[in-house]
């Protein structure tokens, strides 16, 4: 009987006819010479599928474009009246675009707001050795732009292979601006230009990098939340309850390490400026920039929604 630890010998023998000949390297060189265009190696079936997709796209475009050509609604720039003091009441229209996330359901279904990546890595930024993941909401935080933190200096699909300290991203283009977010410490969240919008990025762990220096959860999740939602459990928006839960969250969480795993639940933390941060939840642990154990928080949350 062949054993698993004989795999190399078996694989070398079984795949002995599979050799990287000069053709693959030549195709790679041609692709680079052509400016990174995809190699001309699409199979017939994939080509057919692509062609059919294009036909469908053009057909849909023919239906949609006439509507786009209708006269646009005139845009009027506005300025705040009065003496420039912070407004007393914030309305929906004041919030950044795409802010509204929390569900009104009694037991909200899972809703995660961490943006997924097209490749193997999630869309991220590295700023001063800290990693941040792009969020799906808000979709534009231009209204909350803070101080400039620099520009993307390294754009790469393989962020963990870059050992430098330059401002890096796999989603914000080279020279894209990176900013702090008004009302948020830069250790918790930053914003960057992505495809013409200023997108929000939340601090996360990546490739074994979680906390920097003496940071704790208090540095990553600011106080002052307006509402909390735990999927499958409920939503808490009463200010006193939210304040109590945030105290428990930030004072009783015990750091378990830099590794993070995906959770089946999400804790969404909404602030009154429209920013929403997320911690993944698995059992009694919360995952953001590292893993944090806090059984007391979940007990208190369940009590608060009853």
């Amino acid at each position, binding site marked *: *009987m*062949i*054993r*698993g*630890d*004989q*795999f*190399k010998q*078996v*694989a070398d*023998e*079984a*795949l*002995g*006819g*599979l*050799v*990287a000949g000069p053709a*693959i*390297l030549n*195709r*790679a*060189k041609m*692709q*680079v010479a052509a400016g*990174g265009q995809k*190699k001309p*190696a699409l*199979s017939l*079936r*994939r080509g057919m*599928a692509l062609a059919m997709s294009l036909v469908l796209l053009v057909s849909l475009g023919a239906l949609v474009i006439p509507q786009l050509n209708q006269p646009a609604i005139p845009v009027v720039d506005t300025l705040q009246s009065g003496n420039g003091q912070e407004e007393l009441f914030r309305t929906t229209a004041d919030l950044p675009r795409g802010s509204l996330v929390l569900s009104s359901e009694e037991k909200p279904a899972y809703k995660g707001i961490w943006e997924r990546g*097209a*490749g*193997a*890595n999630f869309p991220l930024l590295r700023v001063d050795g800290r990693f941040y993941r792009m969020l799906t909401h808000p979709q534009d935080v231009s209204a909350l732009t803070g101080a400039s933190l620099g520009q993307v200096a390294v754009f*790469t*699909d*393989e962020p*963990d*292979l870059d050992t430098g300290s330059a401002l890096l991203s796999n989603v914000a283009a080279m020279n894209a601006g990176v900013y702090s977010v008004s009302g948020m410490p830069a250790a918790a969240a930053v914003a960057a230009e992505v495809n013409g919008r200023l997108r929000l990025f939340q601090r996360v762990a990546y*490739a*074994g990098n979680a906390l920097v220096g003496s940071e704790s959860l208090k540095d990553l999740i600011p106080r002052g939340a307006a509402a909390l939602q735990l999927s499958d459990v409920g939503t808490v928006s009463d200010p006193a309850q939210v304040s109590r839960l945030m105290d428990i969250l930030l004072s009783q969480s015990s750091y378990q390490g830099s*590794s993070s795993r995906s959770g089946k639940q999400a804790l969404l933390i909404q602030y009154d400026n429209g920013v929403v941060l997320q911690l993944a939840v698995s059992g009694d642990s919360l995952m953001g920039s590292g893993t944090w154990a806090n059984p007391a928080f979940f007990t208190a949350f369940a009590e608060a929604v009853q």
Partner: protein
Amino acid sequence: MSDSSHAQVNQPVSDAQIEQLYLDYGTDVLRMSYSYLGNRQQAEDVTQDVFVRLMENRPVLKPGSEKSWLLKVALNRCRDHWRSSWHKRVLLGSKVLEIIPDDDQIDNRLEKEALMQAVNALPQAEKEVFLLFYYQNLSTQETAAVLDVPEGTVSSRLSRGRAKLRDFLDGGEEP
């Protein structure tokens, strides 16, 4: 790990070094990708992609880390292919990973094909450590670094993978 004659300290990889890396590790990248994906065309695409990235990015590779770099990039591209809707629709469900020996007189052909199929059918996380540790001869430390997981995780995945293979090769269900 491997010999360290490719990279020069603090120097981006040169054209000549890329040629040498392809000669030394191109087949490793191709076979690992094939073992992962079970599809020759996709494995060749991944190998091509890996060397395109090497030529475009011209990374500074630490001497001795070249193979890890190539396998890490290949693994990421394999994951992309594995997740693609094309792969799910067309390849999964069909018989995958036929053996491609260079000699038709391969001994114990059915047993060896069964082992290849069993490794290919392992859950993704266990298959990755199996391919890096057993097939590419990386240490647990190097495997952990390529996969961005603790060494203990590599050991436990290897242990689980071995148990599943043993069950499968003893006549059980697919791992």
